[in-house]
């Protein structure tokens, strides 16, 4: 049974998704069962991986490199657990949100799409096959586009359309890069590719493959010039959808960036030959500062959090661009922590939308006094975004700064500090609106389930902020191992 877990965690949500539509009234229950089962499986796999066990699963019993293989090791087991955990929290939150932001959406379709998206994302991080990555990326992306368009509003449909166009262009660039790699080596298995690529002389084709894959993934990761789809998506999607997408979809593509660039292509090709790492560092610096600057000017809190996400994703890509094991490890740690923070923040904003009717700055005035738990959740999330010690935002940034100092890149340290300072500005705007205004008379407290879901994610982020050892001990050795085998 344990042996089949890699396949089960991906297939179970996919199988339960149509059931959500068939059993319309009990869609929530079906989704809760599916996410709980997936969470249990992911937890078992992560525990096994923390003891060093590597799951190599061959679908249909056909051995790789001809068959499709899944591989769960120290690098992706925490991500599988993270995605399953976030999905479970979002499903719990959506139960209450059915009467708030999901009121005019079809709840059965929401849960079905959520399960499909979860299945796609888990497939992306579990698989060891290059074309399988593309297939599951499309499964996750398409269900993501539909999730964004759930609300019957023109703005939601337009945001989803823009997301579709830009996301599809990114996927097709990725497919083109996959085609180049297959053309060069004749294999689609990632381990086999990593073994065969260094021996092949066709430098220009390799560079073309790397260029197309980086363009495609940069689109998916919302790296600075290609981030234009993200604010519209997060602002117009219902809060459970925004929480799920912010915590998972960009993170899966970031995992792909690390896995393909360092695991398959090799750090030498990534950093020295194409100097892609330098480009990544430059764009990340711009993303960190520009994202925070744009966030300061927003009055729609969800849009503000979207620009904040662009800024925080800049930290992660900054770590990857350092192209050292310490830098990549720092990026991965911040990836995991930021997922918990942003997911919890968007769920807390969903609770605020329940109480105040919306997430604009003027609607949140005084909400901290009327709904204390929700206000506290938003403040905690904000402090984590700034990177205050003892919150989840701190370990990733600290590791990033030490990695930058080790690499001798002092300007990057300045960029990280500047980003944190700017984050404090927009977080303060939210805190000021929440607490430094009289409480609105008609605000009700959100249901316990919604609050509990937000606090589950934020509580996990507090735990990993105070005790970062579990995350760091899993992801740092994984980063070092990735560099060794490349």
């Amino acid at each position, binding site marked *: 049974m344990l042996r089949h877990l890699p396949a089960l965690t991906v297939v179970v949500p996919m199988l339960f998704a149509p059931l959500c539509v068939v059993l319309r009234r009990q869609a929530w229950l079906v989704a809760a069962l599916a996410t709980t089962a997936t969470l249990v499986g992911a937890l078992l796999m992560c525990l096994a991986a923390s003891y060093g066990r590597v799951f190599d699963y061959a679908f249909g019993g056909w051995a790789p490199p001809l068959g499709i293989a899944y591989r769960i090791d120290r690098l992706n087991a925490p991500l599988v657990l993270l995605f399953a955990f976030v999905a479970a929290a979002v499903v719990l939150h959506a139960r209450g949100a059915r009467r708030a932001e999901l009121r005019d959406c079809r709840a059965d379709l929401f849960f079905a799409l959520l399960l499909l998206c979860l299945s796609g994302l888990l497939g992306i991080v579990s698989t060891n096959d290059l*074309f399988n990555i*593309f*297939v599951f990326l*499309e499964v996750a992306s*398409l269900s993501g*586009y*539909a999730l964004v*368009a759930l609300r*019957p*509003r*023109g*703005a939601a*449909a*337009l*945001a*989803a*359309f*823009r997301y*579709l*166009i830009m996301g*599809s*262009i990114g*996927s*097709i660039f990725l*497919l*083109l890069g996959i*085609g180049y790699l*297959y*053309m060069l080596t004749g294999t*689609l298995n990632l381990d086999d590719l990593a073994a065969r690529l260094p021996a092949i002389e066709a430098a220009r084709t390799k560079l073309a493959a790397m260029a197309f894959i980086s363009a495609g993934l940069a689109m998916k990761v919302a790296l600075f010039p290609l981030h*234009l789809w993200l*604010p*519209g998506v997060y*602002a*117009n999607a219902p809060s459970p959808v925004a929480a799920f997408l912010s915590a998972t979809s960009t993170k899966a593509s970031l995992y792909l960036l690390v896995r393909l660039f360092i695991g398959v292509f090799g750090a030498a090709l990534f950093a020295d030959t194409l100097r892609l790492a330098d480009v990544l560092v430059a764009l990340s610096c711009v993303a960190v500062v520009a994202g925070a600057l744009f966030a300061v000017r927003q009055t729609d809190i969800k849009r503000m959090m979207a620009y904040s996400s662009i800024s925080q994703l800049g930290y992660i890509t900054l770590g990857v661009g350092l192209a050292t094991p310490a830098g990549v490890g720092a990026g991965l740690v911040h990836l995991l922590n930021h997922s918990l923070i942003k997911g919890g923040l968007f769920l807390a904003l969903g609770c605020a939308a329940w109480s105040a009717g919306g997430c604009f700055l003027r609607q949140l005035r005084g909400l901290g006094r009327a709904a204390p738990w929700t206000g506290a959740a938003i403040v905690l999330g904000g402090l984590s975004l700034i990177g205050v010690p003892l919150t989840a935002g701190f370990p990733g940034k600290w590791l990033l700064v030490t990695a930058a100092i080790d690499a001798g890149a002092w300007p990057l340290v300045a960029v990280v500090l500047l980003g944190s300072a700017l984050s404090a500005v927009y977080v303060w705007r939210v805190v000021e609106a929440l607490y430094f205004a009289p409480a609105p008379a008609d605000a009700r407290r959100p249901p316990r389930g919604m609050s509990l879901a937000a606090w589950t994610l934020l509580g996990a982020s507090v735990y990993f902020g105070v005790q970062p050892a579990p995350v760091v001990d899993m992801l740092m050795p994984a980063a070092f191992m990735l560099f060794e085998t490349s």
Partner: protein
Amino acid sequence: MSLLDLAAGLYGYWTVVALMATGLYIVVAYGNLIKKLIGLGIFQFSVFTFFILMGHARDAVPPVVGGDAELYANPLPHVMILTAIVVGVSTMALGLALVVRINRFWGEIDEDRLKKRGHETD
């Protein structure tokens, strides 16, 4: 390889380049949402053509068990294209459904005119 060989022998790949550039240009240049989708479709098609060119082998026979031939064609690129075509069809269907929805809400499917009316999402 002489320049003529380069141009004539790789005409398939030149077609791929032309289609890719055309598709991307249409997506960027036109405001009409349906035209953007058409541009996306042309762009996707160029990548399919690339894969099929990659999988082509002269005088190759489909890999059927029991046959007796010197050269069998590799089915994997074609399988990848079939999957990508299905993905492209689904994307197109979803895109068109979204355009229908946008039209239902706003009566307009041109992005420039939507912007003039103030329906900016960015």
